[in-house]
């Protein structure tokens, strides 16, 4: 069952339904599907949430997922993780679910379209100054762009833009390339070898979701950390020791 043909580079080109200027393509449809799975799944589990000793197995599952995500984030920021779990955890879960569901026949990963990954990277692009300003104030955040001298301002801006582009293209390229590789292998060596590649694809999908979340956390942490070091320096100079 092939939804996206081999010579179509993006599932955006497969339009299912259109009315006037509104078009519904495969990417939007499967994004909605992944969103629905995540929302209804967590709603069903957290509907009967309990703090007893005996909890349901699905609550156990969600608790394990959340605690792993919080542990990873806490290791990176070295302090509280609760501010960042909503954004980074959602990014991870969305990308992970949409990458893993690829094994379902007929499913097209929304992350194999550049529009989806660009939207996710734009979330990170906006979140970095949001967390930076809300933690350190707008003056200190903007001052970071002029470190060490004002000449470096365009390079800082270029760095922000290019890492957003890198986030976009990395996820898109990995997932899209894997679909194309499986499509080509199906034509060359059918039946057994594509299955092995599908299993490899599951691994790659989870790793890419992990990398996307970790990298966005690194970028957010980089906007936070500079001020902390400065404070530490001031404290060191001020202390009599």
């Amino acid at each position, binding site marked *: 069952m092939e939804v996206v043909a081999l*010579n179509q*580079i993006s599932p955006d080109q497969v339009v299912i339904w259109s009315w006037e200027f509104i078009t519904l393509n495969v990417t939007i449809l499967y994004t909605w599907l992944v969103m629905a799975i995540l929302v209804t799944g967590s709603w069903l589990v957290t509907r009967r949430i309990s703090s007893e000793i005996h909890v349901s197995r699905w609550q156990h599952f969600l608790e394990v997922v959340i605690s792993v995500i919080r542990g990873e984030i806490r290791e990176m920021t070295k302090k509280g993780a609760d501010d960042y779990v909503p954004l980074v955890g959602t990014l991870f879960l969305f990308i992970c679910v949409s990458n893993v569901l690829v094994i379902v026949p007929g499913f097209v990963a929304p992350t194999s379209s550049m529009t989806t990954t660009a939207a996710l990277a734009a979330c990170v692009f906006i979140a970095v100054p949001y967390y930076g300003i809300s933690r350190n104030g707008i003056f200190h955040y903007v001052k970071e762009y002029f470190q060490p001298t004002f000449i470096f301002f365009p390079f800082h801006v270029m760095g922000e833009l290019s890492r957003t582009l890198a986030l976009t293209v990395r996820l*898109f*390229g990995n997932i*899209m*390339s894997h679909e194309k590789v499986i499509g080509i292998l199906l034509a060359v060596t059918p039946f057994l070898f594509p299955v092995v590649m599908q299993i490899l694809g599951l691994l790659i999908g989870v790793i890419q979701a992990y990398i996307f979340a970790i990298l966005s956390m690194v970028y957010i942490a980089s906007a936070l950390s500079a001020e902390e070091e400065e404070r530490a320096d001031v404290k060191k100079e001020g202390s009599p020791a």
Partner: protein
Amino acid sequence: MDSVSIVAMASIIGAGLAMGIGSIGPGLGMGQAIAQALAAIAQQPDERNSLTRTLFVGLAMIESIAIYCFVISMILIFANPFWSHVIK
């Protein structure tokens, strides 16, 4: 040779060259990074978690170069912007 076949030939050869030359550097770099990380993990198994995380982030950075080459070769083959100039 008309312009259509010149564009087609240049696109296909360019895609192959982009993929072939472009994956040499990331391949060498990833090999070095993994070798160093393995040596570090073998010396300090306690630091395995942070080493692995840093390794994955670094590998993603290196790999993105090869991914750029791949995306460009896919664009050249499947979504070539120069076709519209040639085919009227």
